[in-house]
């Protein structure tokens, strides 16, 4: 993982700041950095979103393809994740450098998102036991400036919101052979319900307190962090401890509560923003990668 070197004096300075609820960039402990979201940025995907959080830049594309449902859950579709840590983001990712991080990220994303409480997987079913939609969620890290999980999760939520899956009809002939037929109208498509899609809030234990949306420097001062995925109702769907240090139960409880609070507050403005962007329709000026 991208890391910065922090001297002892800097560390003390940051930790003291956090103790007083004042961070290097002037934020409070539970404040996010400035965030920009744009959807529908890659035209050949079915849904896409780009987010920049501080200097962290993440691009997410969703491709829908027809596949076979898993044997255990024949009436559900599923999601696949792939995180590409491009060497653009940081030179450490060059070659196979980003692979380990990529796998770790995608495993976590799989746990957080691929369940029927987060995404309505049933709506992805085309024909039980035969065909379902598989959503390939491709995450591309363009720049790393800390707090990857939160940024990725928000981008995924935005991309899923933006996803349009072509409508298909199943026709059946006399012999019972099923045939998938595609709608002729490109506007005739299915949208996903993203209401319950959680966002990840990562809390970093810095000194005795914890911060959200840690920068790389803050991260360097932290020994352990807690990753909490929270839905818009404040339900925690996944908790994961990261980092080498230990956390005592009391602070885990505190961090969870803080995570729930922050996460809940994150959803409402996000949805509002996405809906507002969509209502602009074709008139919207696209920013893309040059903005």
């Amino acid at each position: 993982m991208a890391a910065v070197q922090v001297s002892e004096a800097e560390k003390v300075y940051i930790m003291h700041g956090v103790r007083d609820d004042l961070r290097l960039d002037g934020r409070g402990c539970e404040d996010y950095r400035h965030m920009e979201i744009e959807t529908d940025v890659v035209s050949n995907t079915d849904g896409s979103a780009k987010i920049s959080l501080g200097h962290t830049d993440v691009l997410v594309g969703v491709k829908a393809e027809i596949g076979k449902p898993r044997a255990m859950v024949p009436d559900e579709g599923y999601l696949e994740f792939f995180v590409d840590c491009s060497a653009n983001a940081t030179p450490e990712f060059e070659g196979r450098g980003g692979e380990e991080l990529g796998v770790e990220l995608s495993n976590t994303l799989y746990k957080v998102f691929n369940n029927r409480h987060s995404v309505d997987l049933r709506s992805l079913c085309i024909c039980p036991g035969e065909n379902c939609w598989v959503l390939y969620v491709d995450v591309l890290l363009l720049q790393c400036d800390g707090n990857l999980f939160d940024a990725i999760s928000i981008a995924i939520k935005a991309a899923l919101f933006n996803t349009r899956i072509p409508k298909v009809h199943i026709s059946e002939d006399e012999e019972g052979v099923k045939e998938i037929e595609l709608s002729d109208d490109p506007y005739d498509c299915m949208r996903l319900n993203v209401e319950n899609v959680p966002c990840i809030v990562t809390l970093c234990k810095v000194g005795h307190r914890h911060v959200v949306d840690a920068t790389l420097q803050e991260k360097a001062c932290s020994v352990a962090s807690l990753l909490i995925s929270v839905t818009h109702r404040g339900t925690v769907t996944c908790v994961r401890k990261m980092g080498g240090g230990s956390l005592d139960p009391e602070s885990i409880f505190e961090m969870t509560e803080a995570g729930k609070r922050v996460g809940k507050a994150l959803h409402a403005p996000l949805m509002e923003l996405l809906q507002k962007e969509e209502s602009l329709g074709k008139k919207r000026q696209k920013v893309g990668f040059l903005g």
Partner: protein
Amino acid sequence: MLKSKTFVKKTRAGGVLKIVREHYLRDDIWCGSEVCKECKDEAPVLQEDACIESNLCSYPHYLIPDTNVLLHQIDILEHTLIRNVIILQTVLQEVRHRSAPVYKRIKDAIHEKEKHFYTFTNEHHRETFIEREPGESANDRNDRAIRVAAKWYADHLTKNTNGGSLKVVLLTDDRANKEKAEQYGLTVYRCEEYIKSLIGNPELVDRLALKPDDQNEIIGSKLLFPEHLPLSRIQSGIKNGGLLQGTFHANRDNYLEGTVFINREGEDINEVLLQGLQNLNRAVHQDVVAVELFPKERWVAPSSVVLQDDSPNDEDAEEDETENKLKGVPPDSSVLKPTGRVVGVIKRNWRPYCGMLSQSMIKEATRHLFTPADRRIPRIRIETRQAANLAGQRIMVAIDGWPKNSRYPNGHFVKNLGTAGDKETETEVLLLEHDVPHLPFSPAVLSFLPKMPWSITEEDMKVRADLRHLCVCSVDPPGCTDIDDALHCRELENGNLEVGVHIADVSHFIRPGNALDQEAASRGTTVYLCGKRIDMVPELLSSNLCSLRSNVERLAFSCIWEMNHNAEIIKTRFTKSVINSKASLTYAEAQMKIDDTTMNDDITKSLRGLNRLAKILKGRRTEKGALTLSSPEVRFHIDSETHDPIDLQTKELKETNSMVEEFMLLANISVAQKIYDEFSECALLRKHPSPPPSNYDILIKAAKSKDLDIHTDSAKALADSLNNATVRNFPYFNTLLRILATRCMMQAVYFCSGMDSDFHHYGLASPIYTHFTSPIRRYADIIVHRLLAVAINADSTYPELMDKHKQSSLCNNLNYRHKMAQYAQRASVAFHTQLFFKNKGIINEEGFILFVRKNAIIILIPKFGMEGTVFFENKDKPSPRLKFDSEGPTLEVEEHTFHMFDKVKVTISVDASNIQHQRIRMALIEPVIPGVSVPVPESEPVAKKAKLDC
């Protein structure tokens, strides 16, 4: 400005793919009108004074047809009267998607300068491009795009003429589209409305295609045919094997029967027989159809009855009678064929058909039946007001549709070709019917011809072998102007012989890829008709620059062998050369020189040497099992004034014919080997597959009737048994057998060596073969020349030459053109035979029975090399007692039994009573069968109406 077009597509594997295409919009697409000052068009297409006189539009106007108008009324648009038409890109794209032939025709019309057709690329114009809206179907979007473009034109022209009178008129037959366009402020008419309003050209109305809603009034409501299945059902049916897909071939002799050839690999059934109108279900010859197989107990045998649809009127009901007749034939259990019925048509392959009008019984009627010249095409019902003028004329008609409640397809008049029976008209008909491109070469093609006066340059001489000193001569049929081969033979100092075959170097003049090359590739071959030649390359090349005429210097591609006196090749050399032929001889002249012992000049010596070697080569080839087959060929002596045939004789073969042939074969084989060695993947070769054993059944049966055995296990065995098959007192028998054997053979075809593994040429008994020796008249030879030139470093290559898929598709075209050229040739001979007999009156002649059918015998007249049919069934009078035995095959008529090869006497006359199809009529004189044969007619000059109806 950049837009992207997005659409979703289903892939073959069942996946779904989103495809995004970039789409650029521009603001520099001109309107193409002369009037417009704003657009910087250098050569505007549309005229300022765009006048088509019409009751509806008294002002100058441009026409904008929508897609359906273009698709269905192309015959109208092609008329010279219709000018100044704007073809929108949207329309053109849709047409291209839906009908390749119409697309080709409209493209041709656009290229024609006098038509003033302009293509407006509205899809890329900034102001006329529209995006599909939610809930809008693709068709609605295109209709809207057409309206937007029309509106743009209307506004644009008004602005640029300062409110002048020039307008655009949208033509559409779609009611909803018309309404919307009217609301939008456009001038819009239905096509029919507009055409009917044209002043001074009432015949244009005949060209209007009938539309589905017109058809209901034409015919009653009785359903004659089962409904066709929708395409989706057909596709799924074919996928799961319930239905079979294939090409429908109507039976030439029996209009109630047809065969579907299944073209899928791995299918155990490759032919499905169809019988009866209901089962044929409106399939027209060459359509791609879906068929359903019947269970085995309903399988039938192909009938050998000859049935023609010649009921006089177009009542839909009276068909039952003939249909019963077909069913009345008792099934022959031994030869049941898979039988089925057509359930749907996947692709229509309709083209305009030539033929004649059979006038309706009622004088004022506008609906008439049209009888196509091709007997495999059903009669077509057309509407015309000029029936009286069209009687006796050859006309062209296009099919518009075939509703399920109509006995005949509906069509419309396209054009008048001329008086039937006229030599020019009939030649035109047979060229059109056989799809022979015969229009004069376009200026684009001619522009690639070398500039005259042409001469051999220094550079040419540098890279070519100078063979001008050699005593080269050419031997061809009399009157030949496209001489593509010349020969020489001389003794070398070492005692061996040097033999050279020099072929016109056409590939020097026709460079790959240019218009001349493309035209030649498309024509594929020169077509020789009686008294007319349709050249593959312009005459300047075919009869002058490429033709190896005597005493002029010509470029050649030479194949030179060193041989010993046993005709064994010691060395082969290929080179581009310059030659100077010393003499162009005819076969007869060459033969005379060889035979005349007093002559001893260089040419004669060279010819004698060639002749001697040719005999050895031929002997060796026959030894290997090359077949000598026979087909009667006739030559007409044509009157130089009237161009009517005045005499007819079968072609006779001289030794020199075989001499030239032998060396051509040798050159072809040498070249084939060379190009295959050099380019194993993309050599253009020719093969002749060995026929399946069942093809020989008829030959074996026929020989058995004379107690002879024919062995067909190999070409060699066949050749030997044919040589031994002679019957005493019947010298013509062997020729007859050889004629039959020819009919058993497969077609020889061109192919690309990379696409096939079987190279064998059965007829010539050669493991490899190609065509090298006639580049003036065959395109395949040009390709072979190019390959060989590359192989010997005499020319550069180009990508298409080395692309086996491109070559393979070229081969398909060449094979098709060759087949069609042959058919056209035969048809031309048949027509001239008719002309000949017309002038002759009635002739009594001897002939032999070639085939025995259920109700007829087919007779070959050796003297004229022609065939004719004697029918024993007849509508007007009771048919004689017939008994057919397919084993023999024999046919018993009353007391007499006909066998194959029986000698009979017939009278030959031309049946001019039926002007539709003039045909040769034969009637039996000997053997005398009461009630069947006719008395020997006196040689009357006037054609007498024979009693038997064909």
